[in-house]
């Protein structure tokens, strides 16, 4: 089989259920792939490992990374976007008047460094947030829970559940994708060289991953969940169930273009929209050849039919 080292951008959780499911159910194997999943985590920069050749394919958390490839003239690009909607959220305490994005303008918000160089720019552009609002975020809910006025970043399938379970209330959850953020999430990034030399391998990996997602979301997720819990023993069944449900409820994978054209699909139009917004923010030069950030050749064709369950 062809070996593939695949890097996720966070510790194992329901957000990577499709890949673990593909591993557990032998979908990758069926496509002639010997896949190793390498978890990410806070401080783990998977992109760097990808560039250094330690990973064959890595999940780029957002579209920014793909544009950065172009900007820094790095011969890598993205080949698929698993999440049509970025599952990033802002969470706040209920009853504080922090119920909408515009209401949060000027309020202190805890975000991490990568968010600051990522979708924070969208919020600045769209809602007039400023950097002065930023407070340190430690990947930990304690500061949030200790302060009723606190607002922090989070993931749709994670913090709301933990807060409900431990603190006993439902926080306000604001999904940035719902506010018009046009970035994709969970993009597959790989090298131009791999695309040029082994397009078939890339194709099989994309297809098998999509198939894995279909299985995870549509069938019994237990095999994938078991593998997730092996990689990340802190994960509970309840949280996995919640995460999976959140993915489905919000159509993270299967909304928008993907609804008709299958999981993983990307379009020039959305890329164009994303690039225009961000270059208007001064993040990218207007003459950037943004189309070099991705290729559409591996998605939006047979994917839907081929992954139909036998």
């Amino acid at each position, binding site marked *: 089989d062809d070996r593939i080292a695949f890097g996720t951008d966070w510790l194992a959780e329901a957000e990577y259920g499709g890949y673990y499911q593909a591993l557990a159910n032998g979908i990758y194997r069926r496509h002639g792939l010997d896949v190793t999943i390498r978890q*990410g985590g806070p*401080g783990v920069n998977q992109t760097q490992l990808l560039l250094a050749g330690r990973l064959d394919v890595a999940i780029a958390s957002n579209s920014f990374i793909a544009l950065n490839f172009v900007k820094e003239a790095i011969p890598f690009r993205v080949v698929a976007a698993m999440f049509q909607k970025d599952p990033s959220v802002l969470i706040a305490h209920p009853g504080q008047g922090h119920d909408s994005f515009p209401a949060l303008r000027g309020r202190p918000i805890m975000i991490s460094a990568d968010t600051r160089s990522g979708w924070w720019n969208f919020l600045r552009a769209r809602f007039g947030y400023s950097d002065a609002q930023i407070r340190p975020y430690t990947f930990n809910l304690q500061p949030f829970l200790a302060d009723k006025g606190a607002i922090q970043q989070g993931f749709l399938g994670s913090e709301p559940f933990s807060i409900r379970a*431990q603190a006993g209330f439902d926080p306000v959850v604001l999904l940035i994708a719902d506010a018009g953020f046009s970035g994709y999430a969970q993009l597959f990034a790989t090298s131009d060289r791999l695309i040029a030399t082994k397009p078939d391998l890339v194709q099989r990996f994309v297809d098998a991953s999509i198939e894995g997602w279909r299985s995870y979301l549509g069938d019994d997720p237990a095999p994938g969940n078991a593998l997730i819990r092996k990689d990340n023993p*802190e994960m509970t069944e309840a949280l996995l169930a919640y995460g999976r449900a959140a993915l489905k409820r919000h159509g993270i994978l299967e909304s928008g273009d993907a609804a008709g054209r299958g999981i993983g699909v990307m379009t020039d139009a959305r890329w164009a929209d994303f690039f225009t917004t961000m270059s208007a923010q001064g993040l990218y030069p207007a003459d950037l050849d943004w189309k070099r950030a991705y290729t559409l050749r591996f998605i939006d064709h047979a994917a839907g039919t081929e992954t139909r369950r036998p």
Partner: protein
Amino acid sequence: MTRAAPWLFALLFLSLWEIAVRASGVPVYLVPGPVAVLGAFLDAPSLLLASLASTLGVTLVALAVSAGLGVALALLMQASPLARAAFQPWTVVLQVTPIVAIAPLVIVWVGDPFASVVICATIIAFFPVFSNTAAGLAAAPAELLDLFRLNGATRWQTLRLLRLPAALPYFLAGLRISGGLALVGTVSAEIVAGAGGVASGLAYRILEAGYRLQVPRMFAALVLLSASGITINLALGALAGLLLRRRGEA
């Protein structure tokens, strides 16, 4: 009394902590009391202990490597004033380079996650042994150096018979500082290097439990970490006492 004091203090501290937590009604996800922490440990002792073992393994290797490297480099600089002049300032670079920044590079270059974490931890733990040993080697009393010079001692003899024994207390003091740093360095490196495939250390428990708001478990991991740190420190202290006792310096 003196023997029991740390335990009494710990007991007092823990009691006060539990009482404070109960009296104030701080929710367990913010600050858990000792009882809750103990409970969290007993929930999954083998999980935590396995992580501890993994972390300690890296720590001890890193400490040994730091000690060896620190002494070797200190010796090199003692042996050659030119080497000292050339390198000494640059050793600081290792100390001040944040693990977070270089860990990805180390992982990229080294590949093997275990070796990567050991290297990162060593980078952190290395400096105190090195700098203390270097100071100790330079601190040999002038009148004894005169004696050696007069008797035609070679550089190497002066090193082995005078400078090294004179540096021993300095080395041991440095080692004691490095012991703790190796531990915390390992944890930091584990965090940056991520779970990376190998058996996951305590760092990972702390992070993930923290992220998942399983705060009592996070505290349990922290307590294990602290206990290991204290044990390492006391063990190195005992070693120093043993080695220096005969010399009447303990």
